[in-house]
């Protein structure tokens, strides 16, 4: 017990040095917690953006559609298929695609018409909430369309502008119609940004003379369910159709997300190493400043093991303090960044990875492991960082130490 009292006294005796050491460790811990949470958030957001924004977790197409898309390769009766998928606990929405031309004034652009059910789409993907300006489609307003970001730029179209579209309907006739721009999307992905022209399913059916069928069904698996577990059920419902997961649809992106952890490890190692040096330095200084003192202790008959324990106990008392302080600042900050994020919009206009937009607000993701790991790491670091000075102190020869300056 005596040794604990000594340790406390030693810490309190040198208030300023103890405070600096504790604060350095607390600061290091806080940084590590926030950093881990941010990195987790980055990976998580990438995956969420990739899937929930537009792609969904699973997509269904008619066989051969993905290899060579054609308005005639349809999924028959998508309404009942979506209903069965919903009964099985999934979120699902069907989409209709056709290519054509949109023009406004003298500007024109090749576009992809995308007929969607406004309500089902809201239920399945985040697309309806991903608007730069204006509003999402409404079944009651069939003349409204929503444009991809770059398409709107090409046509210099703004909300409530009129645009003309032309195409060849599925019966061969000339499809042409005048629409009103209701909304413009934020960056979603290459294809949608450049050529996406969203309209309601009924508007699409009328324009393209396609009374039934659809080209794509997009499915979101509820968060509590694993994709691989859900797949057999989806395949059973969509028998005879082409069922693909988002990883199969965009393998480059899946690869990137899956290897993101590997990417982050060197970054984390570098950060932690820098922090380890800070802690080690503080500990070394604390011991070497007091070599004279330890010499006196040893001269008074304190055994080497007691000196060793004393140094370690001092370090651990300070580490406890630092842990409490670090957690008290790092965890709330990580939580704050989870809700508010860091707005990168001031640095970049919008970015895409493998054709999928990434969010410009960088949010953290707080998890037990991303708090516990830095904490454990701090203790290990302190233990390693103190071991050398502690051994050094224990092995001091009293006479040399007392004469040491």
């Amino acid at each position, binding site marked *: 017990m005596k040794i604990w009292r000594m340790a406390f006294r030693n810490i309190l005796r040198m208030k300023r040095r103890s405070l600096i050491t504790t604060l350095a460790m607390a600061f290091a811990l806080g940084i590590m917690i926030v950093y881990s949470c941010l990195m987790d958030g980055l990976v998580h957001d990438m995956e969420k953006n990739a899937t929930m924004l537009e792609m969904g977790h699973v997509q269904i197409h008619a066989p051969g559609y993905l290899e060579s898309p054609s308005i005639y390769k349809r999924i028959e009766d998508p309404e009942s298929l979506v209903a069965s998928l919903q009964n099985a606990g999934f979120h699902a929405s069907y989409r209709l695609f056709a290519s054509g031309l949109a023009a406004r004034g003298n500007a024109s652009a090749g576009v992809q018409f995308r007929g969607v059910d406004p309500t089902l789409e809201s239920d399945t993907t985040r697309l309806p909430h991903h608007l730069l300006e204006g509003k999402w489609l409404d079944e009651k307003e069939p003349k409204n369309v929503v444009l991809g970001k770059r398409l709107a730029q090409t046509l210099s179209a703004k909300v409530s502008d009129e645009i*003309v579209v032309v195409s060849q309907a599925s019966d061969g006739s000339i499809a042409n119609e005048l629409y009103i721009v209701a909304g413009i999307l934020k960056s979603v992905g290459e294809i949608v940004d450049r050529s996406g022209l969203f309209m309601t399913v009924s508007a699409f059916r009328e324009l393209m003379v396609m009374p039934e069928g659809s080209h794509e069904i997009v499915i979101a698996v509820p968060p509590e369910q694993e994709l691989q577990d859900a797949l057999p059920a989806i395949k059973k419902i969509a028998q005879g159709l082409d069922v693909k997961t988002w990883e199969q649809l965009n393998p480059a992106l899946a690869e990137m997300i899956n290897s993101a952890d590997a990417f982050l490890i060197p970054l984390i190692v570098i950060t932690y190493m820098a922090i380890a040096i800070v802690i080690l330095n503080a500990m070394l200084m604390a011991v070497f400043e007091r070599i004279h003192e330890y010499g006196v202790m040893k001269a008074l008959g304190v055994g080497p093991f007691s000196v060793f324990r004393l140094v370690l106990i001092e370090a651990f008392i300070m580490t406890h303090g630092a842990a409490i302080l670090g957690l008290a600042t790092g965890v709330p900050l990580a939580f704050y960044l989870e809700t508010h994020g860091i707005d990168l919009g001031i640095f970049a206009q919008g970015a895409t990875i493998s054709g999928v937009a990434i969010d410009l607000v960088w949010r953290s993701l707080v998890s037990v492991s991303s708090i516990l790991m830095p904490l454990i790491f701090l203790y290990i670091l302190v233990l390693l960082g103190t071991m050398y000075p502690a051994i050094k102190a224990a092995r001091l020869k009293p006479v040399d130490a007392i004469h040491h300056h």
Partner: protein
Amino acid sequence: MRKLFYKNMVQIWTFVFVIFFIVSLLAPITSQTADPDAHAILKKIDDLWRGTSSKAILTMKVKTIHWERTLTMEAWSQGTDKTLVKVIKPLKERGTATLKVKNEAYNYLPKTDRAIKLTAAMMLGSWMGSHFTNDDLVKESRMSEDYDPSISFSGKREGADIIELTLTPKPEAPVVWGKLIVIVHANDLQPIRITYYDEDMIKAREMTFSDYKLASGRMVPMRMIMRPTDKPKEFTEIIYNELIFDVAIPEGFFSLAQLRH
């Protein structure tokens, strides 16, 4: 010595003979590259439907594996660079029109009351759902401007006297084809068939002509069929129901304002 001279003479004569033989082989090729006949034939095909002006009523039948439809259209032309085509039937598409003035073309859509300018990117798109492209329309009657013709065959083939022209694009010509093979009747130079090859010299499509008739004192094929090679079951057929040359067309007829009428 004499013997040697003799031997040399044989060699010289052999040499001269071989040279002559090679030159005689090359002769037709060199004369082809600047064949005035080939140019004249091509010019005649270009000018077939071209007068000072023309007015026509034509039927266009388009057949694809998914649908089949027939459009009746009215067409006017003036000189080489003014064309206006308007749909009369079916009723749903009545008034849909294409206007071409020089190298600019517009599609007018009555339902939206808008005219859309055809940009470079749309040139390879289908014209009114047919197997003709917008590019065909804009570049009609200018084969002699864009291609160098040469006669590649002349004589009897499939029981008819024909002349076959091979057209290669001029170096700077803005064309999408690798070459064209044009076959005409040898006697009256009426076109029989134009075969289009892509840039890899693979056959892409074929247009055949038939039903040669007199219109305003001119012999013209009244029926044309375009068949894409990669879609053997599809074709577009154009039949002239009426064709009058040298009609009076009012000033300002080929304008965007006219499209609305």
